[in-house]
């Protein structure tokens, strides 16, 4: 066996996993604080990337386009909370999930209606020259993505641990009724958390968009991040990162070493099967909160 090649594949896999984690973090934020499994996360990634790239192509400088898109995502978050989530409060989780599915149609449609359906290329100005490390080549762009993911996780950790907003998020996640009882405004918390998830979507959208081009298929990254969530636990940011790394690693290794024997294309489902087998051992994921069975 060629260990140099193996290491190269493994590192590429880990870095691909970081890209999955980026999308998964957006899910975790919303699930943690409001118990909604937000299928529209992929649509939000598409919406953010498409809005940014269209504004940028209109001639707005990078940071102005970024700020304008961020503002749009915040407005979107507030609208979603007011129009979709608040009226459906206390409905069963599956109904909320269905609502986010409807929401994903609306957001995808709106993005394409405003900005058209053509494919945009997005250049973030990061050179994608492979860095040689001994005999292994590492994509510079992937390293940059990993760095961005690290910064986001650090920022979110600070937000959750050391700010009043973060404290409110954690209170809402812990016990909604108790949070209400202490005077926290749950609608405001939810709107904020959707806005933060919008920010994460924007970053994920830019990185994915730079990699694959900004087009409709961007909204399908949601399907890549679901097994990551299952593996890491729906309510753990650390889980989203570690889950992403594990999925990216095993998926890439399986595609390279097993794929050729079964006709290829196994990356469509292998992540789900990995997550499934893993769950049979640990039913709440790696870092998921152990649900207490009431007697």
């Amino acid at each position, binding site marked *: 066996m060629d260990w140099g090649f193996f290491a190269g594949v493994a590192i590429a896999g880990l870095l691909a996993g970081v890209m999955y984690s980026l999308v998964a973090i957006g899910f975790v934020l919303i699930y943690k604080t409001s118990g909604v499994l937000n299928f529209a996360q992929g649509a939000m990634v598409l919406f953010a990337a498409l809005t940014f790239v269209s504004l940028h192509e209109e001639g707005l400088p990078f940071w102005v386009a970024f700020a304008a898109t961020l503002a749009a995502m915040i407005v979107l978050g507030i609208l979603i909370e007011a129009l979709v989530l608040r009226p459906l409060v206390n409905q*069963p989780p*599956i*109904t909320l*999930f269905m609502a986010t599915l409807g*929401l994903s149609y609306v957001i995808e449609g709106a993005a394409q209606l405003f900005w058209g*359906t053509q494919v945009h290329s997005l250049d973030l100005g990061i050179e994608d020259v492979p860095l040689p490390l001994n005999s292994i080549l590492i994509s510079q762009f992937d390293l940059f993505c990993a760095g961005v993911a690290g910064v986001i996780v650090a920022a979110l950790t600070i937000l959750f641990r050391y700010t009043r907003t973060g404290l409110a998020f954690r209170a809402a996640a812990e016990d909604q009724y108790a949070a209400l009882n202490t005077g926290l405004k749950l609608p405001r918390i939810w709107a904020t958390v959707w806005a933060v998830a919008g920010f994460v979507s924007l970053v994920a959208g830019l990185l994915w968009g730079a990699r694959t081009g900004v087009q409709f298929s961007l909204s399908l990254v949601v399907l890549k991040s679901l097994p990551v969530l299952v593996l890491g636990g729906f309510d753990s940011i650390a889980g989203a990162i570690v889950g992403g790394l594990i999925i990216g690693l095993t998926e890439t290794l399986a595609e390279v070493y097993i794929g050729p024997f079964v006709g290829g*294309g196994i990356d469509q489902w292998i992540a789900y099967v990995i997550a499934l087998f893993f*769950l049979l051992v640990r*039913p709440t994921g790696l870092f998921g909160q152990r*649900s207490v069975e009431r007697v």
Partner: protein
Amino acid sequence: MARLNPSHAAIVLFLVMALGVPFIPSNYIFDAILTPLLAISLAGLGLNLLAGYAGQVSLGSSAFMAVGAFTAYNFLLRVPGLPLLAALLLAGVVTAAFGVLFGLPSLRLKGFYLAISTLAAQFFVQWALTNFAWFSGGDTSGVITTPPLFIGPIAIDTPVKRYLLSLFVVAVLTLIATRLVAGRAGREFIAIRDNELAARVLGVKILRTKLFACAVSSFYIGVAGALWAFLYLQTVEPAGFDLDRSFEILFVIIIGGLASIRGAFLGAAFIVVLPLLLSRAGAAVFGATFDSGLVDIIEKIILGVLIIVFLRAEPAGLSALVARIKRGRGLALPTTKITGNFS
């Protein structure tokens, strides 16, 4: 014996649907509305047995439809002289076995963890059917035209005949389902959905009951898939059984009403007819010259908005709406929710 009757309204409805055939002038109504409506209703009914009654949500329904369609196709291809109804039955049986296999995780996983893991079935089945030509009888085009169908000497070759065969199969299976949920099995399903621990204390065999629910549900969905492919599309192709179709089936039971036989039919009517009405309206408003891609996008937005509006207005589904109209307005009815499994 009161339990035996699925309610007189259903019998009347069946008779109207069977005897009303000569009064419907257009083949379009059979081919584009009624036949797919029946297949989707049956799939919704199958999913409702598992998700609505037994509380185990699946996002992989269309994979099971695909298994049913391809099973029927392969049996008809490889066993000369096999009667069509036997092929449909075998489609159900094979899909049921498959459902039990993918139902095994439900013994360990709950709620969304289970729902997401059913996506494994969705993607795996689609991949396997596309990647291995054996399933398509060596046909690599991706789209297989179904062989001519016969019931005994009668050729099933017109829209009306295809519709009547669907109606017959769906009516028989619906009758069996009403008996099933009214009996011991249905109560055991509900017991597990509402409180697994209490069900176990009461002597419900959790393992056996969950797998039974998976098997019955998959049987229905498999037969529905065979009906969909053979009587509606008249082609068998993996691409038609994608994730969107799975979500469509889930929409059917959420919009129709969980844990309700009637809900599957009401939901299917909503899901099948709404896009047709939207595209008609789109064509009427914008005219044929208009960019059809744009009309598709607008339709998608309207569909999404309608789903959200509908969930807001009637979270317990059309079936609760019908029940409320029946009993006079203003009466608060207990709503059916999937409880206990989401924490």
